[in-house]
């Protein structure tokens, strides 16, 4: 199975080619190396999937960089069911985004740079999901973060873009700090960083606890929560969700690939990968479930009132990621990964459609200035409609199966699960509503933009619409591999993943399963109907509502003032400390004192010592002799005494 190495290294090769030759030689052909590489990765990923389906899994260290007693830095790969699913998701979406970008980015001056970063991202993400140890996971984790930063700030001349890049990076730092600590704790506890021994031994430390500031904390719970910190940052869960909406400053294909389909799901993947650790700690599981459920609802409410087309989709992403964590938190890891997989297609589709709209509108993002685009861009309209139906959970489409699975598992798990189910169901209602609000505002009604924009309206070129159509197939059919037995399916997806993540706990009757399914379909339809009433039949209702509940509207419009709150309690104090204490005192007096003073001292010593080196042969000889006699004298004294 050595051929699997092509999967990460083809994109790496493309990155190297584009970054070295892109500027001068390849230029407008930069898409070729990157796209072909990721296509190659996709083909090999399919082969790997076949092998895994045939029961062949693999765990090997490819090479070890340094060994220091127990500490081992190695590059190794673990190919199992979970990895196979992730590989397919990453390579397929990445490939389609590469193709789409040929049209979307075609006249950008940084064309080669864009493809180079895209390849680097694909490489890093693949290294992340293929890792067989925590260190490599961490490496991939940081590398995708770096790519995300580079791509959000791709148009770095724009201040908002470079600010958004910085914000994403800094917010992620908070989560990654915890994640890093978690990895260190794992090493200290287990003496290794490889998945298999760590997961195998996790049970042995079940009752160990550590003392933190006088507080006894269960060791496994601590590790799980620290790891989850990383997931919260990367997957934009409350309270570290603030970076993702701003990340929409990046090019739209990047939003589709990195900030919807792949990188942001790394947190979910990591939790599922570490399920042997998480499952041992009910506390950590509860935290995961509640954070996921609350985020799902919270982000959905914000999405209700936003007018920026990409931001609506961004909040929808946060909300859907919440669902995935919700699933993991109730032990239904397979359901979480299932949703990750279907979500990748319909959410990438939503973003690329949004990109297509922006392309037609000359970069316009405000939905209030759109409307009636249906007749100008039919392909975009229909594909986006299907994606919206899918995310709303209309039976038969991909989103239905995965979302239904999550809600049912949450309900069946009982306890916290029931609460999470309630949150999820309400969020489902909102999801259907805001998704169709987006459709209606954008594609229906009268065009509300300028005359010039109207003149410019056109369907996007084939190179962009064909990826949309392919993703559309995914948004419809990707769920069919996980049809529940209740509807005559075989639950193939969760059976496939069972060797890695196990079976979910909790039992429920068929009646209850019918009930949860019925409710989720009902709320989806309700959401769509409300959207129809509000935005097609009677557009005055939302306006009146906003006036009536001005306070609520303002809170939602301002995203619960979270950014403002962080600004007040974190950013400002930090800047204050940075300016007045660090720059003024620590930096000026202490650090600069050391940094400048030490070399100055060394320099001064050097200038003195240097005088000995005067070029005179007899002096050199004398110094040698002096050294010799000195050593001799010391030894002689030592032995005579």
């Amino acid at each position: 199975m050595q051929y699997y190495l092509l999967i990460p290294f083809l994109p790496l090769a493309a990155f190297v080619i584009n970054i070295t030759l892109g500027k001068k030689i390849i230029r407008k052909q930069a898409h070729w190396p990157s796209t072909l590489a990721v296509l190659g990765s996709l083909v090999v990923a399919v082969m790997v999937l076949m092998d895994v389906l045939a029961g062949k899994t693999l765990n090997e260290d490819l090479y070890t960089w340094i060994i220091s007693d127990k500490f081992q830095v190695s590059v190794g790969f673990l190919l199992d069911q979970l990895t196979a699913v992730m590989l397919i998701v990453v390579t397929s979406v990445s490939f389609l985004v590469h193709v789409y970008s040929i049209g979307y980015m075609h006249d950008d001056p940084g064309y080669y740079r864009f493809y180079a970063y895209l390849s680097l991202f694909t490489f890093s993400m693949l290294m992340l999901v293929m890792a067989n140890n925590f260190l490599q996971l961490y490496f991939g984790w940081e590398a995708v973060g770096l790519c995300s930063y580079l791509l959000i700030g791709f148009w770095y001349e724009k201040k908002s873009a470079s600010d958004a890049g910085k914000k994403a990076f800094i917010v992620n730092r908070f989560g990654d700090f915890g994640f890093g600590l978690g990895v260190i704790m794992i090493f200290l506890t287990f003496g290794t960083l490889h998945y298999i021994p760590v997961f195998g031994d996790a049970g042995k430390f079940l009752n160990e606890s550590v003392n933190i500031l006088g507080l006894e904390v269960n060791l496994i719970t601590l590790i799980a929560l620290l790891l989850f910190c990383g997931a919260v940052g990367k997957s934009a869960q409350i309270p570290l969700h603030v970076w993702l909406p701003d990340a929409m400053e990046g090019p739209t294909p990047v939003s589709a690939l990195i900030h919807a389909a792949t990188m942001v799901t790394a947190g979910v993947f990591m939790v599922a990968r570490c399920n042997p650790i998480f499952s041992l700690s009910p506390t950590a599981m509860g935290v995961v479930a509640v954070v996921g459920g609350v985020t799902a609802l919270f982000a959905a409410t914000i999405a209700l009132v936003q007018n920026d087309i990409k931001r609506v989709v961004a909040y929808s992403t946060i909300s859907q990621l919440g669902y995935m964590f919700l699933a993991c938190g109730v032990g239904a890891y397979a359901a979480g990964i299932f949703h990750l997989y279907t979500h990748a297609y319909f959410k990438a589709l939503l973003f690329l459609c949004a990109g297509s709209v922006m392309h037609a509108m000359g970069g316009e993002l405000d939905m209030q200035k759109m409307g009636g685009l249906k007749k100008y861009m039919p392909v975009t309209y229909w594909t986006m409609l299907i994606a919206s139906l899918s995310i709303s959970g209309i039976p038969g489409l991909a989103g239905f199966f995965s979302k239904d699975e999550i809600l049912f598992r949450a309900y069946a798990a009982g306890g916290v699960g029931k609460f999470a189910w309630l949150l999820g169901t309400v969020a489902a209602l909102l999801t259907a509503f805001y998704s169709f609000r987006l459709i209606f505002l954008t594609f229906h009604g009268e065009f509300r933009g300028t005359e010039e924009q109207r003149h410019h309206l056109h369907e996007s070129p084939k190179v962009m619409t064909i990826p949309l159509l392919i993703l559309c197939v995914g948004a419809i059919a990707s769920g069919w591999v996980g049809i529940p037995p209740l509807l005559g399916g075989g639950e193939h997806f969760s059976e496939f993943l069972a060797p890695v993540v196990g079976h979910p706990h909790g039992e429920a009757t068929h009646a209850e399963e019918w009930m949860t399914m019925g409710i989720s379909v009902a709320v989806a339809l309700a959401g769509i109907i409300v959207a129809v009433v509000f935005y097609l039949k009677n557009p005055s209702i939302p306006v009146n509502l906003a006036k009536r509940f001005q306070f609520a509207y303002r809170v939602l419009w301002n995203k619960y003032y979270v950014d403002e709150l962080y600004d007040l309690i974190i950013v400002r104090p930090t800047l204050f400390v940075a300016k007045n204490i660090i720059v003024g005192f620590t930096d000026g007096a202490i650090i600069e004192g050391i940094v400048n003073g030490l070399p100055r001292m060394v320099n001064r010593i050097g200038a003195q010592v240097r005088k000995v080196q005067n070029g005179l042969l007899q002096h050199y000889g004398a110094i040698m002799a002096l050294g010799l006699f000195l050593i001799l004298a010391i030894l002689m004294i030592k032995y005579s005494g």
Partner: protein
Amino acid sequence: MDITIIKPILPEIVMAALACVVLILELFIHKKETIGVFAILAVAAVSYVIPQSFGSAFNGMFISDGYSVFFKFIFFINLILAVLISIRYLKIERSEFGEYYSLMMFATLGMMIMASATDLIVLYLGLELMALSTYILAGFIRHDRRSNEAALKYFFLGAFSSAILLYGITMIYALTGTTNILAIASQLQGKMTTQLILAIVFLVVAFGFKIALAPFHMWTPDVYEGAPTSITAFMSVGPKAAAFAALGRVFTTGLIDFAPDWRGILIALSILTMAVGNILAIQQSNIKRMLAYSSIAHAGYAVIGVIAGGAEGLSAMMNYLFIYAFMNIGAFAVVIMLRVEGVKGEELEHYRGLAKTHPLAAVLMLIFMFSLTGIPPTGGFIGKFYLFKAAVGAGYAWLAVVAVVFSVISAYFYLRVVMYMYMHEPEGEPAALATSTPLGLALLITTIMVIVLGVYPSPFLAFARLAIG
């Protein structure tokens, strides 16, 4: 007559014969590059007979074992790379003579003998052959006063150190009645005497001179600066490694019973060397001289491997020298590239804005500077990592800390070169580069090896461990 007894020394015999052939070729060949190519082919021929050479010869005076073979490969790399960077350079310096290559081969032969010697007299023979050849090479640019000065200084101080070495050997012989390194230990039976103190000190000083340990390093900056740059590169790796081979062999076999004593001396010298090398390197504005001090400092690090001792320490030291060969010659190769007609290209000022005018040269220099500093993922990091790890493992954690502190200081002058290349604007006329295929090849080899050793060091580490046995 049993011809098989010469098998262990066959590589040396082949080298000697081919060096003679090269000397004769010089008389008949006018295109001197051809001779350089022949020198490289000679290395290939010698490498070919090495695998069959394992064993001991001349009643245990000479041995071909894993340890010596590992060092011989360092010498070969040193020779090949030095030849590659010399070809164009000699033309620019108007010193194209074929003897140059045969002297390099004789010097390498001397190093090989040093690495294989299990008798102090053989060791001395090898050392003298190496030293006499390098004296001439240091003064090879005959019309350059500084080159002459370098040769003369090197010769006088070298003679001084040879005398000291001989005196040390005499003491050992007086005590034990043998000069066989392996037999010394059993003859001494761990008894400390005044003569032995003298012997140990003299040997440390003599090897310390070749390795350039402070305070016996005084010749190094002047000689390295004055000598032809290609020879500076050659001298800063080969003879140093050869002296390390001898130091390791003599002290960790023959004088192992007195380890606490010589270890104390070496620790003191190591710290002093790191201090002198790094602190004085900061003062330099001439790149060649800076690299001279840097090579002093690196010797200080490598000695830590001998101090730590054991298979781990010695293999760390061998690895370090192996890695050092590539990164150091690589750095000198870049310096040579800047040497064109009329421009010395040795001053830090010449590197101002190099990233703008010659981005590739700047990137290469950046890689070598990073590696010399010890920044991952370059080979220099791996070398230092295992060296310091060996020190910690042997209970000298504090020494490792001292070495790390000096590594941090060294970042100052290595990265200053990087700063000049990348953060300063080029001034005046963009500097020309003297590129050539052999030089390009040398840079390619060194760059690739520095990266490969940084990213995938395990096979090389395993090789060194295997060599120790």
